[in-house]
């Protein structure tokens, strides 16, 4: 196991950020930690990168304990914090050189590893990092995190606040790094990014809800899922929730995702129910569940 986390707990005063989290990440895996803001993602990551001590439980990265062997471990870790945290008053090249030197290496030594990414920002190497665009900053941060050829790359919400095209590009970069043999642990609040990972852990309120491949996670969704819409979405939610057979009703883009206690419920019946209540342009169809549906479902079960 490249990363192994066992029953980690962390409290900030009265607030429990992590309530007994356990997970394993295999060598060479691209592992996603997925959950909304405040779920405990950053706390777990800060524990893994030796910046935070857990209150209970233990964690190892590449067989090194995050508390006892933190010095050795730091040399093998690449960490990209959620916030841009390079020197804005140093140039692109100076930032790279700085992080290479403090890890006792040079840009040339590990150039192969960062080549793909660094080449894209190399034309601007004289520019101060503070004057780069968001996407370029991110590439520089990734290059700096990789310059000492870490065995594990840990990224905290790297795609938050990044445009759709850059997000896609960024995930492609991660895939390429994975092919070079680097284990990647990435957190994200975007459910749609789950499908890009080998395995994902869903986290909510400091609890891991499930850990599996994205396919298996979605397959675990035991209900028939219906996508429903009408002209008055607000009332539509209201009316569906009032239906005695309704189990869950959530807004999902332009449709509502609905599950029923009775799996035999037919589309016609739902249509009739809504049109009977005065809805126009009602549309009902069966749909494939996504990670988000599973997440909502698990969250509800966990709460009750």
């Amino acid at each position, binding site marked *: 196991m490249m990363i192994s986390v066992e029953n980690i707990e962390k409290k900030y005063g009265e607030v429990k950020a992590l309530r007994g989290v356990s997970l394993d990440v295999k060598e060479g895996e691209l592992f996603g930690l997925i959950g909304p803001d405040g779920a405990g993602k950053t706390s777990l990551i800060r524990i893994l*990168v*030796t*910046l935070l001590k857990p209150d209970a439980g233990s964690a190892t990265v590449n067989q090194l304990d995050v508390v006892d062997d933190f*010095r050795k471990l*730091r*040399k093998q*870790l690449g*960490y990209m*914090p959620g*916030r*841009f*945290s*390079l*020197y*804005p*008053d*140093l140039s692109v090249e*100076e930032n790279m050189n*700085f*992080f290479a*030197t*403090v*890890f*006792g290496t040079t840009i040339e030594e590990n150039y192969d590893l960062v080549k793909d990414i660094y080449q894209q920002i190399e034309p601007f190497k004289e520019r101060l990092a503070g004057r780069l665009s968001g996407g370029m900053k991110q590439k520089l941060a990734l290059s*700096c995190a990789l310059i000492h050829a870490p065995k594990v790359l840990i990224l905290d919400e790297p795609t938050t606040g990044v445009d759709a095209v850059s997000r896609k590009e960024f995930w492609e970069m991660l895939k390429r790094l994975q092919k070079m043999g680097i284990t990647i642990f990435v957190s994200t609040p975007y459910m749609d990014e789950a499908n890009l990972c080998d395995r994902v852990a869903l986290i909510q309120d400091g609890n891991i809800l499930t850990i599996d491949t994205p396919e298996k996670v979605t397959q675990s969704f035991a209900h028939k899922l219906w996508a429903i819409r009408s002209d008055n979405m607000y009332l539509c939610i209201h009316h569906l929730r009032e239906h005695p057979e309704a189990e869950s009703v959530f807004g999902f883009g332009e449709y509502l995702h609905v599950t029923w206690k009775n799996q035999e419920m037919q589309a016609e019946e739902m249509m009739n129910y809504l049109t009977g209540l005065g809805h126009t342009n009602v549309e009902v169809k069966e749909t494939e569940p996504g990670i988000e549906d599973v997440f909502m479902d698990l969250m509800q079960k966990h709460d009750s």
Partner: protein
Amino acid sequence: MKILRYLLQKEFIQIIRNKSMWPIIFVMPIVQMLILVNAATLELKKSDVLVVDQDMSDASRQLVNKLEGNPFFKVIQVNDADFDADDQLLKGKANVVLDIPQNFERDLRRDNKVSLQLRVDAINSMSAELTWSYMNSLIRDYNNNLRASWMGVSKFDPPQQIVVSPRYWYNPTLIYAFYMAPGVMVILVTVVGMFLSAVNLVREKEIGTMEQLNVTPIKKYQFIAAKMIPFLVIALVVLSFGLLIAKLVFNLPFHGNLLVLYGFTTVFLLGVMGLGLFISVVSDTQQQVFFLSYFFLLIFILMSGLFTPVESMPKWAQLLDHLNPLYYMMKVIRNVVLKGSGFFDLKYEFLSMLGYGVVMFSLAVMRYRKTA
């Protein structure tokens, strides 16, 4: 060692690129030296005197003449009755009112004794006291002369008199700038050492690079040393610059050894930098550093003996001042520059400042470990 060298290189690049740093290093010393040293003076110059001479005699006129001839006083008005003296005092037109009563000369001749009244504007208690004592010595002098002339002194047998003629050591001409200039240099050095270094360190926290640095193999001592050394160097440059200005503009004599001064300043800087480090460790933003440093700087400067002698402070304040690094440095720099004191003359100050530095640094590093 290689890492430390590289960290230092990075710090210097950042400092050089920081445009607000240059004025602080070069403009601040010039402005503070020129303005503070010249403006902050305790010397009494031209106190405005209003004389109410109700006697208008020979003797009273002599006293007024004497006043007029004194460089510290300026007689703005002589009234023969007390009709608007209080008013002038109230309006701030006069600083002092000297009342010469009726029959001043007659009583003096007959009873050998007479009273004068002095009304002094004491809004500024310091200058009021000075006025009082200058006036006192002037009147005593006048008194002696008067008696001598009335009694008809023979040249060969002068009346026995004790004459005190002061000699001012280390600053014989009592030039106030010689007293102020070294003090202002201490303040310059303190601002660079304590304030700039603290702001610089907390910036790493603010922009988040601290987080990135903490996952690198950089050791704490390397990081702290890399943060402190540049400002130690800058502070010593500022000191040299200040000394140069003092020499060129005020012709400040330098009786001591430069090496002793730089040695002491370095030890002093360790103390204030330790405090700066502590402030930056307990703060999260530059703003917090501003407020905390301001708090300490103000107390330190006002209690340092820059303007008012520490010896005239209450006993408890003098004791408390032993926690003030500027108190020691103020003493050291004045003694080295004006008196030429050497290392062994100041070993108590040396040990105190060294102890201060060790304690401050230990506190800061201990606290740093806990938080980071």
